[in-house]
């Protein structure tokens, strides 16, 4: 009953349908590789001094640099690589300091690699020692193996709804060093990211510095603008 042409058209339609399904599936499964956001860092130190920085941050997973493009209080850039931090004023590197693994443990890298819920600790020598639940919060304790270091240094990590909620650090004497609280999560193109990070840093004399970092206008996998920031080239230094 059906003509040969009918079967040919049917076959072609099936192929086109499969192509569309395949492309749709691949688009959904595409990993996160870029993030940008506006940010502000507000800091109040224990001596009462206050500071504010505002700007934008860019990170391309394949390019391996976090670029903070700061416009307040003065225009400059801070570039974070996995080995160094560079400060750039007026197109010249004015300061370089070593920062091993800082990029790997940046919130941008961890979130895009899906390692933020455990702050990437699964991929470090730290071992999970204990886990406990308090209401909706799950608290895990992480320590270095005693064979490596005999200290009371440890990390406490809390999760709520499988998202990183807090990270607490203790030094080798068991003293509290810092507390970081990750709040106001948003989901952009499937990427879960905190819009506010509150940090308390404790000093030996018992005082504490306080810092709040906020992120807004978060964009994921943006390929329409700011290529020069995602592919930032460090000036000769």
């Amino acid at each position, binding site marked *: 009953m059906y003509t040969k042409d009918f079967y040919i058209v049917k076959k072609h339609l099936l192929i086109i349908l499969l192509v569309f399904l395949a492309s749709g599936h691949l*688009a959904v499964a595409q990993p996160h590789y870029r993030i940008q956001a506006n940010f502000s860092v507000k800091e109040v130190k224990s001596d009462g001094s206050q500071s504010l920085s*505002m700007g934008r941050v860019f990170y391309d997973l394949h390019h391996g640099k976090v670029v903070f493009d700061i416009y307040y209080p003065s225009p400059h850039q801070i570039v974070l690589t996995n080995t160094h931090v560079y400060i750039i004023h*007026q197109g010249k590197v004015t300061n370089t300091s070593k920062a091993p693994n800082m990029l790997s443990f940046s919130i941008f890298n961890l979130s895009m690699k899906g390692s933020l819920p455990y702050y990437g600790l699964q991929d470090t020598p730290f071992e*999970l020692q204990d*886990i406990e*639940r308090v209401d909706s919060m799950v*608290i895990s304790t992480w320590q270095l193996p005693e064979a490596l270091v005999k200290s009371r240094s440890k990390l406490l990590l809390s999760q709520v709804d499988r998202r990183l909620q807090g990270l*607490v650090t203790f030094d080798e004497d068991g003293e509290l060093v810092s507390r970081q609280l990750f709040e106001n999560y948003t989901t952009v193109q499937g990427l879960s990211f905190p819009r506010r990070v509150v940090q308390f840093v404790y000093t030996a004399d018992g005082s504490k510095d306080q810092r709040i970092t906020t992120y807004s206008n978060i964009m994921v996998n943006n390929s329409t603008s700011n290529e*020069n920031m995602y592919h930032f080239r460090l000036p000769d230094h």
Partner: protein
Amino acid sequence: MKKNFLTIPLLLLLLPLMAVGSNHAQFFSYDKEAVEETFSQLDQLEKQIILQTGINNESLSGKSLMYSDLTGINASSVPVSPLFGINDMDWGAFAWGFLCCPVGFFVVAINKQKPQRSKTSYWIGVIASSVLSAISTIASGFASSTVP
């Protein structure tokens, strides 16, 4: 690391049996009102800067304003995007163009989520495939015409 992969699911399974309540929980809370009070001056300053500069979330979203404008570098001396080199090649996208360009067209070329470098890599793959195809066609034609 392997140990952690085993330990985490195991401990999560045992979680409901564990005691509820912990002195560790105190480390993950803070006096929010006190913190807001501490940062109130800086919050005000942040709002003023946004108002004075006119820079807000919307104005930053589609604009590339920072680098050349604020560093004092002549914009003409800073390339908007770096030249495309071998290190910029997205080999997956290249493979789509080289091996299966009709599918790659949907997966890469018209996929808005793909960066420009992937799209460029795709078209390089298409061109490379076409050039090789043309060369092989010409060569086979030439070979068949010279066979006695």
